[in-house]
C-alpha cells in the first residue's frame, strides 16, 4: 500500500532534516576544556524521527485529502456529534447533563489536590477563553492585548484588599466592571483599525498596562508584586489548604456555568447576531443598520468583563501577583485556546482551554521536553484541523417549536 514514491519522499525529508539540524543538534562546543563535541547519534535520531514522521504525515495528508477520516478525526466527529446533541436534543441532554454534573461535582474527591488545583487553573482559562471568544470568535476583532483586562481584574482585587480590606466576593463584580470600563477605554481609539493593525495596537495596550504596573511602584508595588492576597472566604470559616483549593474549584465551576449561560444567550440574541455580522462583513453590516462603533465597543467591554473577573479569581488563587504574570504570552495562550478550540464555539473553547492548560501540566512527565512537545502539538493540530477541534455550529430554527 505504501508506494515506493512515498518512501523516497520520506527519505528525502529525513536527509534534509539531518542537514538542517546538523550544526545545532550535532556540534556543541564544550566550554570547560574548549573541545568540540560531535554528537553524531543525535543526527541519527533526527534522521530516523524525520523519516517516520514525514511518512506518517504523508499518509495522514493523503487520507485527509482523500476525505475519509482517520481515527483522530473520527474521534472529533464523535464529540462534535455529541456536542450538537447536547445543545439541541432534550432527550440526550438531561442524562448527559446529570452524568457530567455528577462527575464535575465529585472531581475534587476522585482526584488529588494537585489535579483539582490545575483543573481550577484550566477553568480560569475557560472563562478567559469564552470572554475572548466574544471579541475574536463572534465580533472577529483580533485582540492580542486581552491580558491587560486580566491584569486589571487581578490588581483591582489585590489593591482594594490591601488598602481597604475589600473581600473576594465584593471584589469579583468590581473587577468585572473595571474590566468592562477598560475595555471601552482601550476599545475606543482603535475603532477604525482592522485586522492585524488592530492586533498590534491591542498588543501594545497590553504591554503598556504591564509596564505601568511594573514601573509605577507607588501604585502597584512594582515588580516585587503583592503577596498574601487572601483566598476566597466562606462566611469567615477558615479552611484547610485542601478545602480551600476545592472551594476555589467550586467557585470557578459556578462562574464558568454562569459564563456559558450568558455567552450562549448572547450568541443567539440581537447583539450576538450583530457581532457575527460585523465579523462577516463590516460594510454590509452597517448597511443593515447596525452601529459599528457601538457594537464593537460592546464586544470589547463584554469580553473584558470576563477577563476582569478571571483576574480576581486568579489573584485569590495564587495569593501573589506581580506584572510578570501578565505578559504577551498570556494573551497568546488565550488566543490559542480560542482558535484551537474552534472560534465562536463554546464547547470548542472549553475543550481548547482544557487541552492547552492541562497538556503542559501532564507533559511535566517529559520535564524539559514539554514546551517542545507543546509547540509541536500546536502546529500539528492546526495543520490537521485548521477549523479548530470543535468548529462552531450555527443555531437551526424549526417553525413548529417557538423560541428556545
Amino acid at each position, binding site marked *: 500500500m505504501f508506494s515506493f514514491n512515498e518512501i523516497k519522499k520520506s527519505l528525502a525529508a529525513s536527509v*534534509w*532534516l539531518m*542537514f*538542517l*539540524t546538523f*550544526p*545545532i*543538534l550535532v*556540534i*556543541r*562546543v564544550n566550554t570547560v576544556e*574548549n*573541545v*568540540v563535541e560531535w554528537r553524531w547519534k*543525535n543526527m541519527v535520531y533526527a534522521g530516523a524521527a524525520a523519516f517516520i514522521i514525514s511518512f506518517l504525515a504523508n499518509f495522514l*495528508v493523503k487520507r485527509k485529502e482523500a476525505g475519509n477520516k482517520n481515527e483522530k478525526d473520527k474521534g472529533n466527529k464523535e464529540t462534535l456529534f455529541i456536542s450538537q446533541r447536547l445543545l439541541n436534543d432534550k432527550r440526550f441532554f438531561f442524562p448527559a447533563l446529570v452524568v457530567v454534573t455528577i462527575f464535575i461535582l465529585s472531581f475534587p474527591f476522585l482526584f488529588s489536590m494537585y489535579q483539582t488545583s490545575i483543573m481550577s487553573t484550566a477553568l480560569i482559562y475557560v472563562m478567559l477563553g469564552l470572554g475572548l471568544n466574544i471579541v*475574536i470568535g463572534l465580533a472577529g476583532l*483580533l485582540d492580542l492585548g486581552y491580558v491587560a483586562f486580566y491584569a486589571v481584574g487581578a490588581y483591582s482585587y489585590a489593591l482594594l484588599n490591601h488598602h481597604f480590606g475589600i473581600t473576594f466576593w465584593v471584589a469579583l463584580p468590581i473587577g468585572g466592571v473595571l474590566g468592562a470600563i477598560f475595555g471601552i477605554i482601550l476599545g475606543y*481609539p*482603535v475603532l*477604525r*483599525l*482592522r485586522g*492585524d*493593525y488592530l*492586533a*498590534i*495596537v491591542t*498588543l*501594545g*495596550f497590553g*504591554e*503598556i498596562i504591564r*509596564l*505601568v504596573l511594573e*514601573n509605577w511602584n507607588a501604585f502597584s508595588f512594582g515588580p516585587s508584586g503583592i503577596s498574601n492576597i487572601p483566598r476566597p472566604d466562606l462566611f469567615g470559616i477558615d479552611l484547610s489548604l485542601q478545602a480551600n483549593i476545592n472551594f476555589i474549584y467550586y467557585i470557578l465551576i459556578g462562574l464558568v456555568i454562569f459564563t456559558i449561560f450568558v455567552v450562549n444567550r448572547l450568541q443567539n440574541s440581537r447583539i450576538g447576531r450583530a457581532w457575527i455580522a460585523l465579523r462577516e462583513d463590516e*460594510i454590509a453590516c452597517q448597511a443593515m443598520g447596525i452601529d459599528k462603533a457601538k457594537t464593537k465597543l460592546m464586544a470589547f467591554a463584554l469580553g473584558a468583563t470576563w477577563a476582569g473577573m478571571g483576574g480576581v479569581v486568579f489573584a485569590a488563587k495564587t495569593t501573589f501577583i506581580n506584572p510578570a504574570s501578565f505578559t*504577551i504570552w498570556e494573551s*497568546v495562550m488565550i*488566543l*490559542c485556546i480560542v*482558535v*484551537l478550540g474552534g*472560534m465562536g464555539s463554546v464547547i470548542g473553547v472549553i475543550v481548547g482551554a482544557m487541552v492547552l492548560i492541562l497538556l503542559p501540566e501532564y507533559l511535566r512527565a517529559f520535564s*524539559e*521536553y514539554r*514546551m*517542545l512537545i*507543546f*509547540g*509541536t*502539538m*500546536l*502546529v500539528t493540530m*492546526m*495543520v490537521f484541523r*485548521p*477549523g*479548530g477541534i470543535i468548529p462552531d455550529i450555527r443555531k437551526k430554527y424549526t417553525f413548529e417549536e417557538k423560541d428556545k
Partner: protein
Amino acid sequence: MDWEYLLDLFLGGLTRGSIYALIALGYTMVYGIIELINFAHGEIYMIGAFTALIVASVLGLMGMNHIVIIILASVIAIIYSAAYGFTVEKIAYKPLRQAPRLSALISAIGMSLFLQNYVLLAQTSNFLPFPSLIPDFDFWEPYAHILTSQELVILITTAVVMILLTFLIKFTRTGKAMRATAQDKVMAALVGIDVNRIISTTFVVGSATAAIGGVLIASHIGQINFYMGFIAGIKAFVAAVMGGIGSIPGAVLGSLVLGWTESFFTGYISSDYEDVFAFLFLVVILIFRPSGILGRSETQKV
C-alpha cells in the same frame, strides 16, 4: 542645548533602528505576500546567530584566521537560516494556505515555541559569549567614541540590504512575481506564476536577512541565548507595522522611527517608560494613518 548629547542619542537611535530594520524586513516581506504574522521569524534570527557562533568557535578551535572565520560563519549562518525559513514555511504554513488566517498564526506561534526549545535542549539555556566578529577598524578609531565600528558596519549593512531588497522587488522577474502574488494569488497563478515557489523564495530571502541581522546584532551586543528572538521579534514587528507592513522602505523607516523614539525618550525623559511611549506612539500613528506611515491605505471596493 547639548548638541553632542543629541548627536549621541541620534546615532544610538539610528543603530537601534537599523537593528530592528534587519529583522523587520523579513517580517514585512512575509506579511506582504501571505498576510501572516510570522511569529517564528524572531526564532530564525536566533538560529542564524547560533549557527554563526557554532561555526565560528569550531573554526576558531581549528585555528583559522579571523577573516576566513567571519566570512564562513556569516555565509553558513545565512544558508542555514534560509533553509530553516524554507522548511518552516513548508511544514507549518503551506498546509494552511486555505485555512482561516488565525489558524496559520497559531501554527506560527507553535513553530516559534518549538524552535526556541529545540535550541534550548540541543545547545544550552545559558547566555553564550558571542565573539565580536567585526574588529575595531583603526581608521575609524578617531570617531569610535561616537559610533563604534560595529555600529558603523550595522548601519552600512542595513542600508545595503534594504537597497538590494528594493531592487530585487522592483526590478527582477522574481520581484515582479512576488508583487503579483502579494496582490492576488489566484490571478498570479493564472498568469503562470508558480505561487508556491515565489512564497518559498520570499521566506528564504526574509530568513537570510534575519540571519544577517542575527550575526551583526549578536556581535554588537556580544551575547546570545535561545530566547533572544522573541523580544527583538515583537519590536521588529511593531516597527514593520508602524512603517506600513508589506512595504520594504516602510519597514526601515518604521524601525528608525521606533529606534529614535526609544533613544530620545530614554535620553531626555526616562527609560522606565521607554516601551510604553514607543507603543503609545505606534497607536497615535495608526490612529492618524490606519495603515502605517508608508502603507498603501487599502480603499475597500464596495
